[in-house]
């Protein structure tokens, strides 16, 4: 063996020129049929929804409404990402919509003038509450072997009671408003236009660098690479998305006073997305969480401490959900004693619409982003068309069903090849 060049033709994906246009489309079609197209169908679905709403109401794609939509999506996205950690294991958290708000409530109460705790401690404390609840679930599931469905259903009921009690015990008539700038600004504060552009350019540059570097490393090692056209397309798309987003956020969306810049919620979303994706794809822990969902006994036999990683996933659900809870109370500008009982279901829906499996072993953080955007688009668009809340529920339900059906049909085709 001379060099690390493993140029055995049988190990290549294809011997034809992978760069020709027909092959590109052919490959894409093949991947679509095999169900590993991943996001293409849902992204197309999202674009269709956007087109529909734009035709019905030209204000839909105005920068003011889009920023609004992104902010509305934030909570679905963050809680969806929280849910994905446990969904990957084949577990579920039915309570994240309640526990996350409980964490948010703790933060709201701590920063309230009567306690006057600095946001610097109060916000992490809120996240910690949700994390500890996640750890508790994980312990019960892992040590006592109780199905997570039951444990978190019990938690859903119990913590709903705790949330009502905590809010009411403040004696403020069932509502606690946010009296603190940082917590308020999570959703309602904006980066300056300059920082918006700096962030957008830096983000796009780093991602492009990573894509190109990865491609070059693989090429240098003599490994099969994606066709160059794919790489270029990806880079171009990234730059386009970055510029469009920056322009949307940069545009003045105020009516009386000037209002520009990216809401802080957006970089928080992106930060969680990047860190979560990094853990899932680049670390052993992420590899094991994925693998456990595929065949947990195989992972155990490989000498991995399976229970440790199952517990970790529940903890990560808590951390991510805790961040979501902070944004929730920020967006509501407070917390009240009417717990949001449908929030969990939207979180699960966001993950599943995006392509995460309820049976474990398949899921990416980005799924929650696309799923959350779809839910927020329906929510936002229908409100814009003055449709009733009842219609919104029905349409969201239909979209959920459609997304999962498309996915499972694609998957069945791939299985029966």
């Amino acid at each position, binding site marked *: 063996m001379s060099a690390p060049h493993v140029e055995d033709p049988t190990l290549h994906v294809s011997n034809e020129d992978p760069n020709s246009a027909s092959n590109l489309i052919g490959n894409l079609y093949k991947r679509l049929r095999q169900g590993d197209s991943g996001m293409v169908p849902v992204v197309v679905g999202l674009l269709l929804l956007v087109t529909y709403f734009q035709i019905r109401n030209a204000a839909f794609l105005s920068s003011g409404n889009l920023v609004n939509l992104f902010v509305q999506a934030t909570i679905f996205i963050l809680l969806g990402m929280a849910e994905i950690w446990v969904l990957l294991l084949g577990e579920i958290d039915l309570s994240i919509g309640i526990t996350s708000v409980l964490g948010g409530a703790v933060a709201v109460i701590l920063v309230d003038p009567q306690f006057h705790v600095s946001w610097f401690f109060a916000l992490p404390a809120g996240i910690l509450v949700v994390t500890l609840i996640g750890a508790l679930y994980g312990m019960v599931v892992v040590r006592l072997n109780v199905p997570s469905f039951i444990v978190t259903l019990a938690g859903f009921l119990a913590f709903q009671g705790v949330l009502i009690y905590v809010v009411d015990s403040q004696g403020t008539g069932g509502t606690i408003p946010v009296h603190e700038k940082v917590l308020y600004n999570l959703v309602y504060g904006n980066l300056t236009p300059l920082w918006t552009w700096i962030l957008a350019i830096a983000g796009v540059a780093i991602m492009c660098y990573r894509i190109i570097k990865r491609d070059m490393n693989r090429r240098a090692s003599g490994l099969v690479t994606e066709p160059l056209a794919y790489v270029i397309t990806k880079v171009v798309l990234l730059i386009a998305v970055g510029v469009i987003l920056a322009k949307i956020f940069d545009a003045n969306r105020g009516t009386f006073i000037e209002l520009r810049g990216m809401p802080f919620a957006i970089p928080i979303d992106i930060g969680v997305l990047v860190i979560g994706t990094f853990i899932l794809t680049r670390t052993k822990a992420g590899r094991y969480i*994925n*693998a456990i969902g595929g065949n947990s006994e195989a992972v*155990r036999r490989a000498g991995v401490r399976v229970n440790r990683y199952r517990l970790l996933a529940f903890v990560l659900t808590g951390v991510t959900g805790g961040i979501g809870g902070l944004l929730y109370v920020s967006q509501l500008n407070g917390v009240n004693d009417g717990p949001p009982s449908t929030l969990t279901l939207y979180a699960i829906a966001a993950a599943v619409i995006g392509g995460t499996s309820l049976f474990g072993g398949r899921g990416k953080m980005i799924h929650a982003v696309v799923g959350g955007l779809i839910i927020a688009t329906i929510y936002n668009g229908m409100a814009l068309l003055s449709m009733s809340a009842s219609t919104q529920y029905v349409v969201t339900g239909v979209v959920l069903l459609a997304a999962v059906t498309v996915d499972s049909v694609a998957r069945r085709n791939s299985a029966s090849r």
Partner: protein
Amino acid sequence: MDTTPESPNLPTSPQGPSEQSGSGVAPSSVPLLSLRGVSKNFGPVQAIQGVNLDIPDGQVTALIGDNGAGKSVLIKTISGIWPPSEGKIFWKGEEIHEHSPRSATALGIATVYQDLALCDNLDIVQNMYLGREETKFGTLDEIKMELATNQLLKDLSVSTVKSVRQLVASLSGGQRQAIAVARAVMRDSRLVILDEPTAALGVSQTRQVLELIRTLSSRGIAVLVISHNLNDVFSVADRIAVMHLGSLVSNGPISDYDTNSAVELITTGQSSRVPTTLAPSS
């Protein structure tokens, strides 16, 4: 009868008809792995009982027996899948306590299970390195793992997989088996256990695996292989162990056996020509 020799420094096998057992107390005379009175039951089902077996370094031990004889249960016990219901397991003369897949891996036991134990939702490289990923600065070193996987599959003549980045779910039965075998042999192990490693393999891959087994043992690695194919067994094994209805009925060097006596032992648990380790009691 219930002879369970418990001397901490097991001299050697209790019966060993020839070789090895005699001479001095050379360190090499301590078998790599020894089972003493190992039993395993699942509720009322007694899967294996009172198994005494020594597995020496650098030799190929073939474990044979009919369907349901308890072969897989025995090797799973050795691999730490579950603790034995009774009996002791010694590694180089030292008793193993708290055996688990993790401790087995740490000792250098690598196993190909009959059900292969692969993760369908991971690709070949990811399965290959499951539990022992290469890392660089704390993150997964995918390129290193992919290169090594390519090379290993080439060495094993597994040339039919299109890409090592395809999901294991999309592989044929034989390809999956080849992956499982490759995974077990890729790391420096002291004992490689193969549960019917060639059952689904084609002619040339089977030849490769048999060749591989010889190579492993020539490198001083102990191999325990389960097979129903007596031709393969006689072509590759140094020792034979026969199980019948959950008991180890005979074991010794291959020269003590021929196809007829092996078949006899497999089907009836006894043979007129070969000494059995079990007094025909039950």
